[in-house]
Each structure stands twice: as structure tokens, then as C-alpha cells.
């Protein structure tokens, strides 16, 4: 399965603790500027906090620079004179004052670091929350079509990887970048102030560093792509073979699989070694380039000091020992944030690429819903007329925008319906059919004949291109989508349960159902007895989509879920396919009860399930090729007869 949705395990997020950096990232957003500007909008509610954060970051960076700048006066104005002229009490106290000043500035810096980290934490967790909830809310509004064309893994990674790189960016990269930027500029200003001549060396080195970063970035980008490709192949193989582990065992393929994996694994190693080399070589190169600069600066600076001592130096290059020492310290302080910035840059680009994908999801076209007719509870008033009421009754009514009430009966008509999923391949071709209130209509036919599609059109999972579907006389497009769906209950082929208790899962059909109603529905679906055998009965937790239940048991719960919803129309799409025929026979009475008085659409592989329908439609290639009840179809001796007797010919 290519789009295999995998529950993200703790380990996938484990590398995000304090102080860990992710691997090399080179994903680039398509529209960097647009994405960035859009991302800024999420910062808006936190504007005031952000201003304080920025002030604190700048203050912390400046404190660092300023504190270091105190070295020069301490050496030149205090220590050197005291060494030369002896330490007077006054000189001492001035020295101590300078030290205290330096300490105070540093302390302030540390406090500012704490404040901005703390505030930024509030902002980043807040923004992540905002984005996550917005994304989920949007996801709920997307049409089924979207989920058809995107794998679960793809959508999941919006929530995991993409928000994750965003988290890293908000929490670390952005503050670091601002910090680094201010540190670099302030240090630079200080350097120019101290010695323009020595600063020239710094500029030359800076150009060299930028060149190195660019060249290495390009190289490592190419290697990274190779690595990703090799990783994709190896991981795909791991996934496929792990899923198929039992088949591998049955066919004794272990040796062959091992050999093949060893090959892929070795390819991955080679590609990864290349990528990792270029990713991690940046640090030592940048770090040591700054040492080279340090050495050159030291020599030239020392010569300048010597020249100044000898008195034959131009004012521009005049330098004291204290100035040289401070300048050298600056050299180190200058290189550090530059290395840091060059690293943060990649993760910011990766985060923006993630943000772009998140925004793409948020920008998706939501499900169309222009319906105005609502579903309301109703009762028959004293004068025999329908009237709306707030409590739940057994009677439903459609309410037009004008306030007219029409009783919901479940009269569904397809008129010349043509439908295609992709606009090219016709799946349903000019289908006309009707279901009168209370009738049971069955669809039979091979896989891909269009059975499930028909039911997906009634509840408007998809919209038809041609023709008309009416429900109690209204075109279903005029009915509010949510209300349309509330009036239909579906039991689908793949039963999906949700994390929660058995009771909560049944209640999924109707939120405010009482415990008695839940049990009643479970009994109807023949699920009560197995539920009572579960360790905690109705309060047993269902985990991992009901992994602890058998497929048949899950279908029984799904039937109970539909039963409690108690809607006028019921759609059963292979609802009993995983229930063995013996159990099915047992629940037949319950099913009959459930179907009584409702319009029912049934899709079943097993013909025994559809036999007692009012009408059976045999579908083939999107067309109804036979219709009638069981007896009529058998008498016709057509496709249905063949299908039916196919099971019987050997007796």
C-alpha cells in the first residue's frame, strides 16, 4: 500500500527535544515571499508580545556586545595605567566600578534571554495551536474528492513533519536569526569604530565565508536529493516487505529478500555518507576560517600596535594592546553568529516549504453547499398539520426557507443520472430509478460496476454532472448538506471505529442517545452479547480503529451505530460482508426491524442478503442491465439468474 497511513510513533518526534538539530534539510518553498508574508499574519494576535520579544533579543545581543566592549577600557584605562603608575585607591574603585558595570550588563543580557525565550515559547505554541486547529477545521470541510486524490500519509505529514519544522523555526530559528543579525551588525559597528583597517580583513573573510556557504550548499543540495531518492527506495522496500512478511515466510523468500535489502541498504549508505559529509563539513570549515582570520588579524594588529608604540603609525591604523585584544575577541564573536545564521537559513527554508503545503491545504476549495432546505423535528399538530418542534420526535420534516414543512418520507428518485469521477470515464451512465418510502432497493453487480457510486451520490459525497436526484420531491442540491446526510444512515463496507468506549462509538450515530437507547440499538444489531463479553462491557475502550475486535464484530457495531441514528433512509454497503452467514441469519430479525418503515438501499455480494428486496438492480459498466424483484429476475434467466445459480450449480 503506497498511501499507507502510519500512526506516527513517538520516535518520529523524539529528535525534537532540547538542543537537537534535525538532519540536513534543503526543501525550498515555491513562493518564499508570499508564504512568509502569509505566515506573518499568524503573528498578529501576538504583536505586543512579539515587540517585547524583539526588544529583549536585541537587548540580549547588545548586552553581549557591550559587555565584551568593556574589555578594552578595563585593560587600557584601568589595568595598564595601574600597572604603570601603581594602584591608587581611586583607580581601584574605578576599576571595580567598570567590572560591576560589565557584570550588570551581562546579567541584564541573561535576563533578557530568559524573557524572550519564555515569551517566544508562548507565541510559538499559540501559533502552532492556531494552525493545527485551522487545518483540522478546514479538513473537515473538504470534499471526499480531496481525500481520494491525496494519500493519508500525505495529509498526515501536514500535521507532523510540516508543523514540526514550523515549530523548530518559530521556537529556535527565528529568535536565533534575529539575535545573530543584531550581534553581527553591532559587532561590526564596534569593529569599524575600533579599527577600520583591521575590519577590512574581516570583510574579506566574510565574502570568502559567504562564498564557501554557497558552494557547499549547492553541493550538499545535490547529494541530499540523491540521499532522498535512495532513502525512498529503501524505506519503500522495508515497508512493502514488512507488510508482506507472512507471504515472505510462506514462500521461504527470506534469503533473497535479505540479499536485495543489503543492496538497497548499501546504496543508501553511500548516498547518505555523501549528503552527511557536505552537511557537517560546513561547521569545521567556517569555524576554522574564522581562526585563520584570527591569526591574520593578530599579526597585522600586532604590527600596527608596534608601529603605534614606535610612533610612526598613521592615525587610521593606530592601535593599542587593549584594542587589539578586544578586536580579536570581536573576531570570534563575529564568526559565531554567521555560522549560526548559515545553518538556520536552511531550516527556515524547510519550514517555509512546510508552511506553504499547509496553506495549500487551508486554501483548498471546501465542499459546495448551497442547500437551504433544513431538516427539523416535527409533530402532527392538533389540527392534523405538521408543526416544527424542538424535541426529538419520530417524525421529521423538511423546512424550506419560506417556512413550509414537508414530511420526510424517504422518496428518492434518480432521473437520467450520469456521473464521472474524473470528468472523463463515465461511471454511471443515464441511470434512472426510484425508491418509494419504505422500499428496499438492492444493487448487484461486479466490482467497479458503480454500486457504491450510486449511494455516494445520494448523500452528495460527489455531485452528479447530469440528471437529477430528488428526495421527497426536492432536488438534493437544495437541501443543506448536513441535513441531507442526517436524514440518511450509512453502514459502510470498511467499518471504522473511533478511539473511545464501545458506548461512545455507538453513540456516534446520535450524540444524546441514552444508555438504554444504546443498548437497544446494540441488541437490535445482535452486538449486545459480544459487547457484554468484552472486559468492560459497553465501557471497553476501542483503540486503533477497533484492532481488538473482529471484522464481523466491528460491522455489528456499525449497524448499531446506524440503528441509533434512526433516520428515514438507510444505506447498507456490504454491511454484512464480514459477518458469517450463520450470524447473519441470527441478526436477520434485527436487520428487518432496522429496515422496517425505512427506505433502504442495499449493496451486497451475497445474494442471499438481497433476495427479499422490493427491487433489485443489476449493474454492469455503469448501466442498469436488469431490474425487478427476485422472482422476476430469476424468471428472466438473465445475468442475475446466472449470478444466483453460480452458487448453486454444483449442488
Amino acid at each position, binding site marked *: 500500500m*503506497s498511501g499507507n497511513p502510519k500512526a506516527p510513533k513517538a520516535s518520529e518526534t523524539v529528535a525534537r527535544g532540547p538542543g537537537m538539530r534535525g538532519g540536513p534539510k534543503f526543501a525550498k518553498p515555491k513562493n518564499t515571499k508570499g508564504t512568509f508574508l502569509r505566515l506573518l499574519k499568524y503573528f498578529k494576535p501576538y504583536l505586543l508580545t512579539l515587540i517585547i520579544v524583539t526588544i529583549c533579543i536585541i537587548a540580549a545581543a547588545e548586552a553581549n556586545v557591550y559587555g565584551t566592549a568593556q574589555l578594552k577600557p578595563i585593560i587600557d584605562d584601568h589595568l595598564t595605567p595601574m600597572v604603570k603608575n601603581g594602584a591608587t585607591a581611586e583607580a581601584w574603585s574605578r576599576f571595580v566600578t567598570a567590572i560591576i558595570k560589565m557584570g550588570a550588563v551581562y546579567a541584564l*543580557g541573561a535576563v533578557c534571554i530568559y524573557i524572550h525565550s519564555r515569551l517566544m515559547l508562548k507565541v510559538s505554541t499559540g501559533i502552532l495551536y492556531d494552525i493545527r486547529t485551522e487545518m483540522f477545521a478546514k479538513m473537515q470541510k473538504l470534499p471526499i474528492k480531496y481525500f481520494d486524490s491525496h494519500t493519508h500519509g500525505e495529509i498526515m505529514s501536514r500535521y507532523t513533519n510540516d508543523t514540526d519544522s514550523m515549530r523548530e523555526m518559530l521556537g529556535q530559528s527565528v529568535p536565533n536569526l534575529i539575535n545573530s543579525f543584531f550581534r553581527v551588525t553591532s559587532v561590526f559597528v564596534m569593529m569599524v569604530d575600533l579599527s577600520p583597517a583591521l575590519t577590512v580583513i574581516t570583510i574579506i573573510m566574510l565574502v570568502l565565508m559567504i562564498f564557501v556557504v554557497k558552494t557547499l550548499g549547492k553541493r550538499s543540495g545535490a547529494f541530499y536529493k540523491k540521499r532522498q531518492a535512495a532513502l525512498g527506495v529503501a524505506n519503500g522496500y522495508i515497508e512493502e516487505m514488512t507488510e508482506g512478511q507472512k507471504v515472505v515466510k510462506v514462500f521461504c523468500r527470506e534469503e533473497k529478500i535479505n540479499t536485495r535489502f543489503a543492496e538497497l541498504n548499501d546504496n543508501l549508505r553511500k548516498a547518505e555518507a555523501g549528503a552527511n559529509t557536505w552537511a557537517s563539513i560546513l561547521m569545521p570549515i567556517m569555524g576554522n576560517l574564522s581562526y*585563520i582570520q584570527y591569526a591574520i588579524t593578530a599579526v597585522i594588529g600586532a604590527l600596527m600596535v608596534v608601529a603605534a608604540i614606535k610612533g610612526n603609525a598613521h592615525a587610521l591604523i593606530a592601535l593599542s594592546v587593549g584594542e587589539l585584544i578586544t578586536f580579536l575577541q570581536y573576531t570570534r564573536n563575529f564568526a559565531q553568529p554567521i555560522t549560526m545564521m548559515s545553518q538556520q537559513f536552511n531550516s527556515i527554508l524547510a519550514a517555509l516549504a512546510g508552511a506553504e503545503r499547509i496553506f495549500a491545504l487551508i486554501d483548498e476549495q471546501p465542499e459546495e453547499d448551497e442547500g437551504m432546505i433544513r431538516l427539523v423535528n416535527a409533530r402532527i399538530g392538533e389540527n392534523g398539520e405538521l408543526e416544527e418542534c424542538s424535541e426529538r420526535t419520530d417524525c421529521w420534516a423538511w423546512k424550506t426557507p419560506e417556512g413550509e414543512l414537508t414530511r420526510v418520507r424517504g422518496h428518492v428518485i434518480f432521473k437520467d443520472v450520469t456521473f464521472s469521477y474524473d470528468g472523463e470515464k463515465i461511471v454511471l451512465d443515464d441511470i434512472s430509478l426510484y425508491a418509494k418510502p419504505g422500499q428496499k432497493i438492492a444493487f448487484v453487480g*461486479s466490482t467497479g460496476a458503480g454500486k457504491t457510486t450510486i449511494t455516494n451520490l445520494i448523500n452528495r459525497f460527489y455531485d452528479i454532472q447530469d440528471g437529477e436526484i430528488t428526495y421527497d420531491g426536492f432536488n438534493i442540491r437544495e437541501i443543506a448538506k448536513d441535513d441531507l446526510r442526517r436524514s440518511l444512515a450509512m453502514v459502510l463496507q470498511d467499518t471504522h471505529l473511533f478511539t473511545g468506549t464501545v458506548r461512545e462509538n455507538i453513540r456516534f450515530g446520535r450524540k444524546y442517545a441514552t444508555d438504554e437507547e444504546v443498548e437497544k440499538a446494540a441488541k437490535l444489531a445482535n452486538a449486545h452479547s459480544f459487547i457484554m463479553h468484552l472486559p468492560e462491557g459497553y465501557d471497553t475502550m476501542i483503540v486503533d*480503529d477497533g484492532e481488538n475486535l473482529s471484522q464481523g464484530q466491528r460491522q455489528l457495531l456499525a449497524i448499531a451505530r446506524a440503528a441509533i441514528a434512526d433516520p428515514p433512509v438507510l444505506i447498507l454497503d456490504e454491511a454484512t460482508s464480514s459477518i458469517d452467514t*450463520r450470524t447473519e441469519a441470527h441478526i436477520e430479525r434485527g436487520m428487518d426491524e432496522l429496515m422496517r418503515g425505512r427506505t433502504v438501499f442495499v449493496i451486497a455480494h451475497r445474494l442471499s442478503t438481497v433476495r427479499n428486496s422490493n427491487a433489485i438492480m443489476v449493474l454492469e459498466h455503469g448501466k442498469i442491465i436488469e431490474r425487478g424483484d427476485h422472482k422476476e429476475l430469476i424468471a428472466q434467466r438473465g445475468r442475475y439468474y446466472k449470478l444466483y445459480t453460480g452458487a448453486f450449480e454444483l449442488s
Partner: protein
Amino acid sequence: MLRKFFPAVRGYGRQSLGASFMIILEGVLEIMIPFYMTKLINEGIDVAVPNINIIIKYGALMLLMAVFALITGALCARLAAVAGTGFAMNLRNMLFTKVQDFSFANVDKFSSASIVTRLTTDVTNIQNLYTMLIRMTVRNFIIMITAFVFAVAVNARLALVFAVTIPLLAIVMFSIVLIAHPFFERMLKKLDLMNARVQENLIAIRVVKAFVKGEDEKVSFNESALALKKAQLAAERIVIWNNPISQFIFYAAMVAVCFFGGQLIVGGKMKVGDLSGFLAYIGQILASVMMLSMVFVSFIITRASQKRIAEVLDEKIDINDDEADPDLKVADGSVEFENVNFSYSKNPDNLTLSGVNFSVRSGETIGIIGGTGSAKTTLVQLIPRLYEVLEGSVRVGGRDVREYKLHTLRDQVAMVLQTNLLFSGTIEENLRWGNENATQEQIEAACRAACAHDFIMSFPNGYQTDLGQGGVNVSGGQKQRLCIARALLKNPKVVILDDSTSACDTATDASIRKALRTELKGTTTFIIAQRIASVMDADRVMVLDDGRLVAFDTPERLLETNDIYREVYESQMKGGDEE
């Protein structure tokens, strides 16, 4: 636990040591640069007569060291990358081959998703830890000690500053990690919960929409997102102390050195140049303490990954054929069960199969029916020894299955699993799983028997059609038929079809059975089916109920004598004779 990972270093030990060595060299060089810087100032400038030669000499030395440090640093990056990726490769191979040795029982214990996580994310985590270990641990220890020695050499009394700051910093950093760790665990749990919610909604989006539950789901998602936000705040609130405190200690050390150093200089016990060298050491020493704490951090946070990988490596394989006779061949397709008890949990009080006895002659066709959970699948899986019996004996060809090499046994007992899978590749490649050396004729014959030949030929590329991962390009029924053909190609003595035609229409189902009967004469066939029609033409039918074999007889007699069989028969055949 780490000892388990040692074998993964194999073949990359030299690179690992090399990386450590290079980075130590780099570190030492980086320490020496400020040392010579101090000398340059003290001996070249800060003397009565400045000495340009000394300045140039020390300058050149520093430059040389910086260039050398650059080279060693780059070499370390390369060696560490090679060592780290080699380590990861070995680890992946160890895991993968181990998983290939797993029996079904072992496979059941780990979900396939969790095995994939272990082979991918967990390995990457350990790889990062390993690279970090070889690059950081030794280097930072050495830097810390060397810088300290140099600092003492410059001025022992001033070096006392480190006696306070190093332990202080270490204690603070390590306690932050230890305090924060449980909070991070909690946060990850909340994250998993939230992601599970999303996942659930993705898988069941149709159910959510059909029941108009979008709003409710949104509310509960927001709850879990809020819980995550709170947990994240709680965890990171502790970690953010890291930065300001370490900076504070660093600054405090700077101030202290300036103050005490100033005193020493004024007292004539130290030179001005020494001060700048000392300031450089502060940065280096404290940075290395922080790096070491980072190694510690990654060690702590990858503990879960380490544990998960160790779990796989430590897993005891419960089926092996070490003592089997490699020359023993399967004589015929007879199958016998003698007092077989089986339990998935290996617990005699929780039997899935109990007291099963039967004997099947070679060449018989046996149908198996029974309700969900009656252990039909369990029973047949014991025949190719996919699981081990708890008590009793399963015999194939007259010998206990434990006497055969697994390869020998499974080659002769072909099983078509209920959850059948095809792999990416062409149809032919998939079929060849059954027999690597099959001729085109053999392949086609198997496909004809499985009613697969016609639809294969209807594809433009015939047998060369690419199936895509998991066989996504064919329908369910076609997939099942390919799986049957794949098993038939083994030309086995026993064939087991575990509900293998459920997605095929009844006519196809019937003709497959017919083909099996005529073309695989002499092959014992077991057919598990939901459809009564699928077993009605079997020689004999087993009726299973709740892990017991309640009846084993011809279909005709069962109809008369067995209630379960009759009930199933009637539920499916009722009305069939109306016509």
C-alpha cells in the same frame, strides 16, 4: 543496552576512531591558537622592545595551526559521515535479517507499522547519537581538560574560577535535562494522541461526513491540540532555562576572570596578554561542558529508540529448524493432527484450538467451515508450521512437521493467505515467487488453473504488467487469483486456500475448484470458505466451532448429522429452489 549496538560498528571501527582522532586534533589546535596569541602579545608587543620577528613567527604558527585545524575538521566530518552511515547500514541489516527470521508469532507481536518505524526513524535516531558520540564525547572531554591545563599553565590561581564554574554548569545542565525529560515524554504522548485523532478522521472521513460529525470531531481535536499545547509549554518551560543560565555562568566567569585577573595583573603576578588567552579558555571550556550535556540529552531522548531496536534484536525466535534433517523430503500430501492444542499466548488455559484429531489422505480435497473466530485459519497455519503447536503433533507426509527443514516443508505445503499481498514488480515477477525457475508454460498453466490467464492476457502488457506497490493495479478478485497461481507454481503436495476466492464471483470460484481437482490430482487441498457452495464438492468437510473440530465427514452426511453445517447451508441456500 548500548552493548547490543556494538556489532553494528563492524567494518567502520577505523573510520569511527579516525573521526574521533581528527576532531581531537582540531580541538587541541583550536586551544593552542589563543595560547600562541597570548605569547605573541606578551613576548612580541608587551615588552620593552617590540619584536617583529616573534610576532611574525607566532603569527605564522597560528595560521598554520588554523589551516591544519580546518583540514582535520573537514576530515572528521567526512570520516564521521562514513562511520555513522556505515553504522546505520549495519544496524538496519541486523534488524532486517532478524525480522526475516521472525516466525508468525513474532510478527504478530510487532505490528508492521512499528517494525517500519524501528527500521527507519529509530535507526536514524541512533545513527545521529552515534555520530554525535564519536564527534563530540572524546573531543569535548579532551578540550575541557587541555584548556584547563593550559589555563593552569597561564595562571593556576586564576584557573580556580573553573573549579567553580565547570561543576556548576554541568550540574545545572544535567538537572534541566533530567527534570524536563518526563515532561517531554508526556508531550510526545499528547502528540501521538492528537495525531491518532487526525489519522482516525482521515481513515473514517466518510463515516464522519455521513453522520455529520465534523463539528464534534473538531471540538475533540481542538481539545487534544490544546492538551498538546499545554504539555509542550510545560516541557519547554523547563528547557528554556538552559540558555540564560549557561550564558549567565559564562558571563559570571568572564567577570570573575576580569576582576581577579585584574588584581593579579596590578599585583604584577600576571601579564595583560594572559588575560585575553584566559578569556578564550572560558569560552572553550564552558562550550565543551555544554556539548557534553547535549550528548547526554540525545542519549536520554533516544532511549525510547534504543529500547525499541533492542527489543527486535532480543526477540526470541520461537520456531527454528536447527535440529531438522536437511535431507528429509516430504513423502506425500497426507496430513494428520494428533491431540493438537494451540494457543497464541502459549497459555494452556487459553486455547485457540483444543484436542484436534484428524487424518487426511494424500490427494483428498477438504473443505473447512465454521463461524468467525472458530479457528479455521489457525488450524491450517499449523500445517506449514507457521505457528508451533502447544501440545500434540502435526504430521505431513507421515513425519512431524518439526522434523523437516522449514524450507523443505513450506515448499511442499503452499498456502494462500487470507490477507494476500502482491509486491511491486510485474505479474511474472510476482508469480516467480512460487518458482524462480518456472518456464513460461508452467506459469501459464498455473494461471489457467487459477482462472487468471485470461484477465492477464487482457492487459496490454500481459504477464509483464506492472502491479505497483501492494498490487494496486488489479481488482480484489484478480489479486486473489494471482495469489493462487503463485502458490500453485510451487507444485506442492498440499495446497491451502484460506478464504482465497471470497472476492471472486461464484462462477470463477467454481471453475478454480474444478481446475484444482482435475489438474492437481494427487495434491491434498484444504479450502476454507464462507460460501457453502465452495465446500460442497469437497471429499470431506471439517466443521469447526470455537476451536474444536466438531464434525468431519462428507458434505452429504454432514447435512443430515450436523446442525451447524445445516444452518449455514440453509442460510445460503434458502429460496434457491424457488425457481
